[in-house]
């Protein structure tokens, strides 16, 4: 047996090598499930065959052809019909080889034929049979391969359907056994014990076997933590797409965009700059799609379905039932859908009076507008009578729960009392519905709520979405703010509903939609998907409010006379028509307009900037740390090159002393320091006993001649260099 490499302990090498083969089998087993590899047993046989050949003493020129033969036999069994090694067989084989060689040079990795992939895999197994022989049987350092095996199995278990429960147990038993045996061998080496017969070895191994059995059983029976991530795949995908810019742990990551289902709100999302549509308007508008009425404690459902009516092109629609107190201003818009995605309804703006060239089905209750056929590919034009809401009317005293049916006051029974209490607190002292709504709308920005899209949790099963946002996380995006505002309004008896749609979008150069007339074209992306709030005011209608911090209410309110309640926050010089600024925004009112257009983007990019700087610094620090780590970790390796060069270049005493001193330091790092009072000879013998050769003693004898005989070893230089390099190389290879 070649495994008699160390004649004192042949059994140790045999056991270790068998262990390595079993571990390699653990690598092959999952292939059947994970990669749909067939004929896995053939690979086992090939591995066993290679291992056997490696283990048996024979010259390499015999072993390699034998392995090659085995490889070809496997190929024959798996792929080729022709008689083994016949001419046609050869032709097939080489034809396949040449095709793939070409693909190899073209880097078309994915187009390799199955025989070629199998051939590569077999060659890999062949190489592994040698590598494992080297790791396990010769240097006896099995730890890294064992660790790799565990990593491999756990990764497969996590990300594929392969269940590694038993493979882990098996690998543990094999791995600990192999480690135990190799450690026993090292002890025996150090103590110069002889484990000649298998019986003696078995006696030594009994406690080890006992420990493995006990450890495995305890580990198997013991209770285990449930996984940290129920399913890490989406998390990792999200992280990978986002770059590591500060996504924390979260339960759910979704891509932003318009969705139908709002039953489960919360969780972080990632940006998506797909264009949904282009739209023209006089100024930035919110694009409304639909409303929902029922808050479940987790999300939104629709209970009031309403009825669809048909809108003839050019005819006035009764889409929004504003009362006559609302004044109107004419306008127009044109919308070109690009990639609607989940959007199956037509977005429109507040005050849409008619679709000029499109027949639509519209629902005045839910605010939905559908196209009877597919979504129009051509741009559709809106005639708009932009509403301006009368402040005076809205500020009239209205009894609670007045004006609209029950659904818009619905709240789940599970809504915690503290939501009601908070609302009461917020609206205390506010006399009318408008002021109360305004107070709730402004509550978030005044109390340090944070706009956050990534690190946002999904509420637990027994947790209310609004309650979690208001009292625990205090960070979130539009859904959090709008839902919370509706819940609070309703808890105060103010009818309100939840609106979905898009924010204004970004000004773009795309002008083919605009027909002169001072219209600006906006690009609305999935990133602009938004939700906000509509509050019902008697004798006015549904008025939009914008609670989300960083966004501003684009609704026009028209004040007929100076209302007392607004004096605190508004300019004293009343204009006939005014926009209500968000008091908490830093920018003054004159900067309000651009802010409105890009409010959301600003907030997002602000957090992006900080994330980006953090990321940049993180990378810089990581790279610096990596460099430092490499230098510290490989300082001996780096120094060894330097010293070696010096030793080879200068044949003087100093370079030898220097190189020898470096070697002593290297040994010290490995745990063999020269003790006080220990002579170099004694030290070298100890080192040699550990390394199993006499290099150190020989080198030391030269060093002694240099130091104690004060001899110039010009003629011995080559041998010295050779010895030094060999020792250093072996040490660094550890």
């Amino acid at each position: 047996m070649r495994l008699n490499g160390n004649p004192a302990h042949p059994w140790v090498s045999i056991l270790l090598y068998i262990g390595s083969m079993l571990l390699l089998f653990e690598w092959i087993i999952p292939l059947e499930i994970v990669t749909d590899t067939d004929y896995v047993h053939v690979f086992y046989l090939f591995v066993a065959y290679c291992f056997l050949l490696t283990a048996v003493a024979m010259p390499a020129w015999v072993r390699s052809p034998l392995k090659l033969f085995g490889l070809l036999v496997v190929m024959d069994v798996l792929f080729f019909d022709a008689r083994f090694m016949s001419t046609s067989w050869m032709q097939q084989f080489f034809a396949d080889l040449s095709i793939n060689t070409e693909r190899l040079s073209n880097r078309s990795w994915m187009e390799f034929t199955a025989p070629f992939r199998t051939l590569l895999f077999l060659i890999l197994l062949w190489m592994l049979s040698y590598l494992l022989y080297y790791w396990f049987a010769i240097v006896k350092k099995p730890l890294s391969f064992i660790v790799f095996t565990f990593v491999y199995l756990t990764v497969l278990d996590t990300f594929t359907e392969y269940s590694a429960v038993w493979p882990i147990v098996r690998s543990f038993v094999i791995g600990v056994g192999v480690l135990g045996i190799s450690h026993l061998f090292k002890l025996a080496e150090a103590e110069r014990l002889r484990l000649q017969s298998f019986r003696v070895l078995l006696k030594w191994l009994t406690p080890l076997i006992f420990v493995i059995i006990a450890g495995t059983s305890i580990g198997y029976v013991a209770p285990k933590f449930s996984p940290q991530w129920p399913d890490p795949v989406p998390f990792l995908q999200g992280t990978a797409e986002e770059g590591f810019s500060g996504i924390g742990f979260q339960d759910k990551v979704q891509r932003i965009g318009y969705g139908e289902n709002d039953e489960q709100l919360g969780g972080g999302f990632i940006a998506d700059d797909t264009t949904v549509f282009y739209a023209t308007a006089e100024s930035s508008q919110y694009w409304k799609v639909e409303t929902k009425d029922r808050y479940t404690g987790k999300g939104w459902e629709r209970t009031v379905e309403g009825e669809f009516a048909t809108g003839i092109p050019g005819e006035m629609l009764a889409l929004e039932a504003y009362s006559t107190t609302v004044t109107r201003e004419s306008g127009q818009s044109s919308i070109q859908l690009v990639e609607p995605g989940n959007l199956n309804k037509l977005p429109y703006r507040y005050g849409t009076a008619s679709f000029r060239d499109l027949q639509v089905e519209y629902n005045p209750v839910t605010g939905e507008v559908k196209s009877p056929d597919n979504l129009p590919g051509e741009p559709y034009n809106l005639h708009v009578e932009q509403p301006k809401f009368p402040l005076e009317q809205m500020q009239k005293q209205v009894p609670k729960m007045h004006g609209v049916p029950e659904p818009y006051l619905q709240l789940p029974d599970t809504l915690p009392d503290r939501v009601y209490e908070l609302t009461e607190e917020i609206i205390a002292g506010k006399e009318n519905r408008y002021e109360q709504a305004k107070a709730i709308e402004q509550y978030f920005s005044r109390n340090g709520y944070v706009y956050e899209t990534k690190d946002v949790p999904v509420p637990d099963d027994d947790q209310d979405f609004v309650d979690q946002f208001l009292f625990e996380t205090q960070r979130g995006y539009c859904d959090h703010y709008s839902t919370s505002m509706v819940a609070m309004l309703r808890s105060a008896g103010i009818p309100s509903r939840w609106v979905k749609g898009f924010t204004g979008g970004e000004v773009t150069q795309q002008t083919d939609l605009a027909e002169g007339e001072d219209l600006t074209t906006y690009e609305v992306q999935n990133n602009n998907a938004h939700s906000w709030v509509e509050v019902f005011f008697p004798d006015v209608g549904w008025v939009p409010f914008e609670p989300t911090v960083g966004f501003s209410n684009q609704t026009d309110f028209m004040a007929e006379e100076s209302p007392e309640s607004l004096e605190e926050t508004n300019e004293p010089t009343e204009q006939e028509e005014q926009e209500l600024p968000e008091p908490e925004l830093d920018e003054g009112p004159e900067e309000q307009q651009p802010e409105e257009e890009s409010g959301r983007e600003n907030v997002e990019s602000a957090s992006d900037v900080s994330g980006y700087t953090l990321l940049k610094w993180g990378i810089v620090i990581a790279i610096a740390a990596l460099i430092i780590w490499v230098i510290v970790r490989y300082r001996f390796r780096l120094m060894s090159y330097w010293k070696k060069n010096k030793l080879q270049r200068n044949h003087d005493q100093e370079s030898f002393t220097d190189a020898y001193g470096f070697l002593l330091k290297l040994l010290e790092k490995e745990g063999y320091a020269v003790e006080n009072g220990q002579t170099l000879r004694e030290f070298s013998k100890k080192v040699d006993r550990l390394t199993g050769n006499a290099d150190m003693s020989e080198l030391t004898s030269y060093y002694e001649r240099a130091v104690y005989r004060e001899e110039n070893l010009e003629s011995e230089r080559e041998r010295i260099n050779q010895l030094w390099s060999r020792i250093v190389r072996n040490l660094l290879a550890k």
Partner: protein
Amino acid sequence: MERSIVTQHSKIEELLTNMEKVIVGKRDTIELTIVALLAGGHVLLEDVPGVGKTMLVRALAKSLDLDFKRIQFTPDLLPSDVTGASVYNQKEMTFEFLPGPIFGNIVLADEINRTSPKTQSALLESMEERNITVDGQTMALKQPFFVMATQNPIEYEGTYSLPEAQLDRFLIKLKLGYPTEQEEIDMLGRTTSVHPVDKIQAVMTQEEVIDLQQQVTEVHASNAIKEYIVKLVHQTREHPMLELGASPRASISLMRASKSYAFIQGRDYVVPDDVKWMLHHVLIHRLLVSSEARFEGRTVASILDEIANKTRIPMERG
């Protein structure tokens, strides 16, 4: 302490093997004896009677083809019994000097502590001076001159223990010790009609010994080695548990012994291992443990071990 017991020098290996035919299992002791001989020093053997002290010296003398003399020290021995005396020759009407046993090459001074200090000093002075003055006449002793003194460790009645100043003159102090069981069985097997010491042949001539002694003095001791020796000796002087440290003569002795040992190992330069190995044998009889340390059970040997283990060895060219 580990060291190789294989002697590198072929001539000395021959001598060792020859002597081993007589002295069983005492290779170390034989080697140290040769170390002392080649270093031109003398050996003090301290051991119980009957372990083969005399046989060791006789085997050495026979192997080297040197003149062997033995002096049995007794309380009534006079200095002239050692050195010899002038006797009046009536026939020739002159005083004629009859040389004493000290005029041999290898002198065994048996039970040296049983005689009076006066007689002891007659021997010890001649050991140092290598010549002797009797009746105003100075005579050189034979070359090589090697004294092997024995003393009994057990305190007998009427012994005169050697003063420290006298002990300093011995290069090395040795113990033979009892043989192991197996060695003793071997020994019984050998002691047949003819004693083994009578069967061995000389393997070296007198001239060769003198030549080897000369070569030993030429063994190179680098500055690093000298530094190491001095450090070790200084430690003995500063050690709190030692009443008496080693003298400068001890430093010289340590270097000579180390050179000699290095030579036997087949080297022409001293390495720290030589010094470390010789340290015990050269210093053990020159140091005195303080009474408190003795009370604590410390011995010279243990203190020397301590010193050897804590002294850093110079590893660079000095």
